[in-house]
């Protein structure tokens, strides 16, 4: 009982620090997911380019990302790459997350592109639209719609994954929970609090993704 009261106390009194953490998580997620999207689009196009060497490059990238834990990727970028290029912590975090999500997004987009009926491509080309124009104006807009549910899901995963940047010292939501826990020598209430923040974010995003899905379904 008293531990529940204590938890509520922690939950309420810590809100300002957690909001700071939330803001960092937000910036980090948005930046990394935008970049991941561009990376994903790029490698998806490599994969369907029908040019062997480009396909191999894309395969290698996807294989490396899917074959190693995210935390290893982040640590290599943060601790390792600094020998070559010293990137600030925030951007190391962004880079690690984007590098990771990019591979999953590439697979989602590739799948969506390949699911578009090939008659669409032929119709575009028969009208004199070049390969690039057909891709940009005809195929991609349809592929993105089709990819919305999976992309939404991947974005939610990306936000949760962003918690790992706390291990390179960032004060994101999870980083805040860890340090507050350390300060007070009392981890549990802070971890439960941060769990609730994440649940809330994911809930909101899930609802938003569902709404968008429905909107898109209507217009079909």
């Amino acid at each position, binding site marked *: 009982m008293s531990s529940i009261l204590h938890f509520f106390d922690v939950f309420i009194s810590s809100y300002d620090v957690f909001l700071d953490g939330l803001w960092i998580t937000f910036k980090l997620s948005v930046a990394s997911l935008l970049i991941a999207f561009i990376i994903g689009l790029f490698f998806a196009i490599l994969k369907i380019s029908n040019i062997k060497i480009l396909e191999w490059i894309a395969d290698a990238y996807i294989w490396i990302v899917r074959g190693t834990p995210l935390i290893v990727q982040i640590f290599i970028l943060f601790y390792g790459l600094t020998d070559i290029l*010293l990137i600030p912590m925030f951007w190391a975090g962004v880079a690690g997350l984007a590098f990771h999500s990019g591979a999953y997004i590439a697979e989602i987009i590739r799948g969506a592109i390949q699911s578009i009926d090939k008659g669409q491509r032929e119709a575009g080309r028969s009208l004199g639209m070049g390969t690039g124009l057909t891709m940009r104006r005809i195929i991609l807009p349809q592929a993105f719609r089709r990819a919305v549910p999976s992309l939404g899901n991947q974005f939610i995963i990306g936000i949760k994954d962003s918690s790992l940047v706390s291990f390179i010292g960032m004060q994101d939501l999870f980083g805040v929970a860890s340090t507050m826990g350390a300060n007070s020598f009392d981890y549990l209430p802070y971890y439960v609090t941060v769990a609730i923040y994440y649940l809330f974010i994911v809930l909101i995003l899930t609802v938003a993704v569902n709404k968008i899905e429905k909107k898109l379904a209507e217009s079909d």
Partner: protein
Amino acid sequence: GSGEEAEGDSNSSDNGDSENGYNLIEEGKLTFAASGEFKPFSYMEGSEMVGFDIAVAEAIAEKLGLEPAQQKAKFSGIVTGVNQGRYDIAVASHTITEERLEKVDFSEAYYYSGPVIYTRPDSDIHSAEDLKGKEVSVARGTTYVEMANDYTDNIPQVDSDVVALQSLAKGHHDAVLTDDITGLTAIENGLEIENRGQLGVSEQAVAVQKGNDELLDAINEALKEMKESGELAELSKEWIGVDITQEPENITE
């Protein structure tokens, strides 16, 4: 008190005289790292780190005419970060060791302390000898790893000393090696753990990137001044409650 001064406001720009040959990451700023998870040496208050380490770093910056810029980092990454030029210096309770000296230079010690064995009250560990074969948790990248290695192979390593103490209190592990001040603070914060003996004495110092001799000299100069003026002892009393900046013989057992 110096606590207020230590809240180094990043807008203050009265550091016109920073053209002094220190090789700094950012002109006019002293970028220093600490873990923020090592109460009372460094811990978070809001989104700022405070504590003894932080206060010392900020006092040094003031003496050097630089604006202090704190960087929170995982303890295990700090030495590497200084070595690679991610931070100018580290004021993070680093014990001077041979291994670390290969990567960074150290200033004069700014406090003295000793690693202590902590256990739960019901533990049958009463001295270092009893650690043999036990599970002894320590923070990753600390000097305690080496010490624990003398007694056991079973050494779970976590991200900060506080995490280790917290797990210990919750019933995990048999013992934790950490600094006695940190342990005391934990006990004051309600963790049910006990001090079961100290394993020697250590000197904690500021880490500086190798080759940045002007900066190292200036820091040593500043520390000397602070010791002589009693300012360092003041800071110690303010943040720790006792003076731990004197030479070892008067450290409590």
